[in-house]
Each structure stands twice: as structure tokens, then as C-alpha cells.
């Protein structure tokens, strides 16, 4: 099942990146109270499962509305929306000044985080779970591109090379992961793999692999624990060389989202997720969808494996829509 899941995601995402998204931008409102028409959404893998869920529920309430959602990375979403190829983009990083100048108009909808992942059969797993890894060690691995071994990192005799995996597509996860080290996505080293599911698969297949994933691609939504084959390399936040109990919140989906909500997991790589339109939107379907997400839609966030925004934040987002 897992493989099938990855296969379909990889297939979808890969084909979507290559083809120009042809979308039907027409929206008609025949009845004043009844919404009808299509909108199209593309962008971040990080937001994709959540927006698919939201779209499903929203379409149940508004049967004449069709929402097409496709994943292809934040960069693709941004390009698509600014070139009028889709109505809304999902963005999993901060919106750049150049993009705002070109018309990007955004609201925050939820939060999540990027987590460092390794293979669950890692040769020094015991040491890793006891000691964690510091930010500077991660920075060395992900930005310097020097070859080293797991043994050297944890003072054991193990001689396996550390295989660093990085995203190849322009993406929010990469951007935020780099920002954690004060860098840009282009400064990240390592083998480039396409898409979030691609990195999860690469690390699952490589006992010496290390990569980074959005929460939702590391933990299984149904069982709410890590996907088989994956493990988290916990971050030693106070850098004392030992993973303290208060630094250890990776057991399951709920413990990690709780840590993100209470800011115990650092930000970045935790971050708000945005929906972007070109200019302030007056599209009735988009507006209705936005409003619904920020009110009734919030109840799907926990179940979806994401983190709710604070109440004041939600209020200010709704204010923005008016």
C-alpha cells in the first residue's frame, strides 16, 4: 500500500510539473446564495493533503463547486498563480518581496514544520536516539557537502557514509530547512530528489540516508506514527550532547504537532502555510473557500496532522479578507 501511495503521488506530481496546468477560470454565480463554478489550486507539497481535505469537505457543502488541487512545490504554485494559470497557490515559505511586488496576495491558513528524517535501520540509531543532533551538526551535513560517516558523527566505529538527500525542486520545505541554518535553498548540498514523497522514499531505501520532510510526509495520518522505514533524528536544541526529555517529542503525530504549536520545535523550520492569489481576490468561490477554511474548516486541521493558527492570527486573516 505504501509503495502504491508513493507511486501515485510521484506520478501525479511529476506529470503535473511538466504539463502546463490548463485551468478553467470561469466562475458563474447563477443563484445569489448558491456557489457554482471551478477554481484551480497548485503548489506546495506541504499543504497539498490539507487543501485536498478542505476542498472535499467544501465541495460537499457546495455541490456545484469544483476545486482542482495539484502539488508541484511552492515555486511552481507561485509561478502558476502569478501567470494566471491557476486561481490559488499553496505556499510553504515566506512570500518574497519580489513576489509581493508582482501581485502576490496571501493569507495564512495553518502551520507545520520540516523535520530531519533518517532510515529506521540506521547503523547508529541507538546513539542517535540517546544524543540527538545539534543544529550546527545538521548545518555541516546539509550545507557543506563534505563526505563523512555516521561513525565519525557519533564516535563509533561505523564506516558507512552519510548520504544526504535534498529536494531538487523549488520548494518551501527546502527554503525553510536552509533558513534554519541561515542559508538559501540553493546553498543546500546533497542528492536532489523530486518532491516530498521522493525524499521519504529515498531515505526509506537507504539505511545511511538523511533527509528532511514536512510533518505530514513523515507521519502516517491513519496510524499517527512514523511511516515504516522512517525515523526522526531528534534535534538537541540546547546542544548539551544529550537528548533531554523536553526535547523528545517525536513519538507520534500528535506529540510533534503539539510541540510545534507550543513553539518547542524551532521556527524555522516550523512555519505558517499560505494561500496566495494574484492581487486581493474578489472571486466569490475563492473568498467563500477562504472564509470557510478560517472558520469551520479549522476542525479538520488536527485530524489532518497540521497545527492551528492562534485565535488572534485567524481573526487578522479573516479581517484581511474583508
Amino acid at each position, binding site marked *: 500500500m505504501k509503495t502504491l501511495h508513493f507511486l501515485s503521488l510521484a506520478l501525479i506530481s*511529476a506529470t503535473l*510539473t*511538466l504539463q502546463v496546468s490548463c485551468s478553467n477560470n470561469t466562475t458563474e454565480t447563477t443563484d445569489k446564495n448558491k456557489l457554482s463554478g471551478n477554481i484551480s489550486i497548485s503548489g506546495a507539497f506541504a499543504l497539498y493533503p490539507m487543501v485536498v481535505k478542505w476542498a472535499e469537505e467544501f465541495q460537499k457543502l457546495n455541490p456545484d463547486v469544483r476545486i482542482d488541487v495539484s502539488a508541484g512545490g511552492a515555486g511552481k504554485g507561485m*509561478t502558476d498563480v502569478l501567470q494566471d494559470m491557476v486561481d490559488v497557490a499553496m505556499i510553504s515559505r515566506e512570500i518574497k518581496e519580489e513576489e509581493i511586488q508582482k501581485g502576490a496576495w496571501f493569507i495564512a491558513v495553518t502551520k507545520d514544520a520540516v523535520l530531519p528524517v533518517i532510515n529506521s535501520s540506521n547503523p547508529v540509531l541507538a546513539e542517535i536516539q540517546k544524543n540527538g543532533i545539534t543544529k550546527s551538526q545538521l548545518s555541516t551535513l546539509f550545507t557543506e557537502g563534505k563526505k563523512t560517516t555516521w561513525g565519525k558523527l557519533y564516535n563509533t566505529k561505523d564506516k558507512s557514509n552519510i*548520504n544526504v538527500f535534498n529536494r531538487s525542486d523549488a*520548494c518551501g520545505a527546502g527554503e525553510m530547512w536552509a533558513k534554519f541554518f541561515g542559508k*538559501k535553498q540553493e546553498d543546500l548540498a546533497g542528492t*536532489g530528489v523530486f518532491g516530498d514523497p521522493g525524499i521519504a522514499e529515498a531515505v526509506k531505501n537507504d539505511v545511511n540516508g538523511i533527509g528532511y520532510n514536512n510533518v505530514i510526509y513523515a507521519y502516517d495520518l491513519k496510524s499517527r506514527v512514523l511511516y515504516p522505514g522512517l525515523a526522526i533524528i531528534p534535534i538537541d536544541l540546547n546542544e548539551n550532547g544529550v537528548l533531554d526529555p523536553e526535547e523528545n517529542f517525536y513519538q507520534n503525530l500528535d506529540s510533534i504537532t503539539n510541540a510545534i504549536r507550543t513553539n518547542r520545535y524551532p521556527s524555522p523550520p516550523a512555519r505558517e502555510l499560505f494561500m496566495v492569489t494574484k492581487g486581493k481576490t474578489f472571486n466569490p468561490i475563492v473568498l467563500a473557500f477562504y472564509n470557510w477554511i478560517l472558520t469551520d474548516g479549522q476542525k479538520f486541521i488536527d485530524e489532518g496532522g497540521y497545527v492551528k493558527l492562534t485565535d488572534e492570527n485567524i481573526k487578522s486573516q479573516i479581517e484581511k479578507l474583508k
Partner: protein
Amino acid sequence: MSLLSRKFRDKTALFWMVISLVILLLMPILLAVGLYLKSLPILHEQSFFDLITESEWKPMQGKFGFLPFITSSLWVTFLSVLIAAPVCILTAIYLTQYARKKVLAFMHPVIDILAGLPSVIYGVWGVLIVVPFISKTVAPFFGLQTSGYTILAGAIVLSIMVIPFILNILIEVFRTIPEELTEASLSVGATKWETIKYVLLKKAYPGIISATGLGVARAFGETIAVLMVVGNVVQVPTSVFDSGYPLPALIANNYGEMLSIPRYDSALMLAALILFGIVLLFNFLSRMAIIRSEKNQ
């Protein structure tokens, strides 16, 4: 219907045919001109020679070196054709000279299916089968450690993808060689293999060159399947076990950042122009080879 209106219809049909032909002829020129105009901004800032010989790629800092991408493309392409060409030649000889007609009839749809599969399927197959095979079997055999996302993985996936194209042309080539020729050779006492080696292959030589050339052209531009297995690391590869970053992957991966970084779109258009130029060059060279060998005969 009067003669006049018939003639008129004839004329209009002809008119549209000529227009279609002109559009077809103009397409590559329009493409090249469009790409060239789009890449002008970066060419004004840095010389073309510098761009293709520099190896540092840091768009945020305005550093655009194309060398890693060009060399990666060349590595993957040549390696894949090196794998595919012998396989295709041997298969084509077997199918046209030895196998029964039924086998060939059976193989045609098989080849067509292989040719028609979307490349992303080859990419997924590469990720699930070829990449682990390289990291767990091939690399350890040479005493190396790698994640498997390598030039070699890209070349293997690509070679499978170009085989149907090269094979289809080769089968046609071998079939069009007059039977009298091989019969004459057999009748003067040559064995079947000698006949193939000295008569068939010699006669088919231009066809083989042209089939391989077309394979190169297709392989060079292939994007998604290669992108998924090649590792996408910006470096000039020095071995088949290094990761690479071919030109088409560069364009596909960074499509998303085009809008926000100055000169990025221009640089990507230049990458497309270089790709276009190299494919054109290969087509031209393989044509030249054919013309030359035809003259010699």
C-alpha cells in the same frame, strides 16, 4: 461542378498545404529566435564563453555557470547510447535475419508499447529498481558507497527509453537492404555471420549512424525520468557513480524560481537555447555522416 470551381478548390487545398509546410519549417527558427531573445539579458551581462565554462551555480548571487549541467547531460547521454546501441543492433539483426516472421510480428507491438509509455513510469521504475540496485549491488562491487542516485542510474533508465526508438529505425534499415545482396554473399560461400558482418552491417552503416544520432537527440532532451534518478547535484561529474544535473532537469526543477530572482528566467532560457543548439548539432552531424558514407559507396 464547373471546371473553374474544381480548379479553385485544387488551388485552395494546395495553398493550405504550402502554408502548413512553411509553418513547419518556421517552427525551429521561431523557437531559436524566441529563446535567443529571452536569453539576451544574461548574455549582455556575461559572456557566453564564461557562462558555459564556469561551474558555479548560485542564482541568488548572480552566478550562472552552465558547465556542470552541460557535462552531466553529455555523460548521461553518451553512456545511455553506449548501452542502448549494441543491444539494438544485435536485436535488430536477430529479428530481421534469424527470427521467424511471427517473432517480428509479435515484437512490433511490444516495441511500440515501450516507446509509448510515459517517461515518468520509467522514472518511478528507476527510483524503485535501478537506484537501489546500484547502491546495494553495483557500487559495493567496485568498493564504493553511494546512494544510487547517479549518472549511471540516469543512463540505464535512459537507455531503456531510447531502445525502442533506435530499434524501430534499425529494423526498417535492415529490412530495406535488398535480399539479393545477402544471397549473393551466401552463394559465394560466406557464412551467415560473415555475410551479416561484411555485407549487411556495411550496407546498413549510414542507417545505424542515423538511428544512433536520433537516439542521442532524444536522450539529450529527456527530462523527468532522468531527473528522478540522477541526483541533481550541481557539480562536474568525474565518474559514473557521481551525481549529475542534466540541462533539462535544470529547467524543469527551477521553473518555480523564475519569477523571483533577477536574471533567473533569462538564464533558464539560455539553458534551453544551449539544449536546442546541442540537439541540432547532433542531428546535423549524424546527417553529415550519412551523406559522407553514402558518397563513399
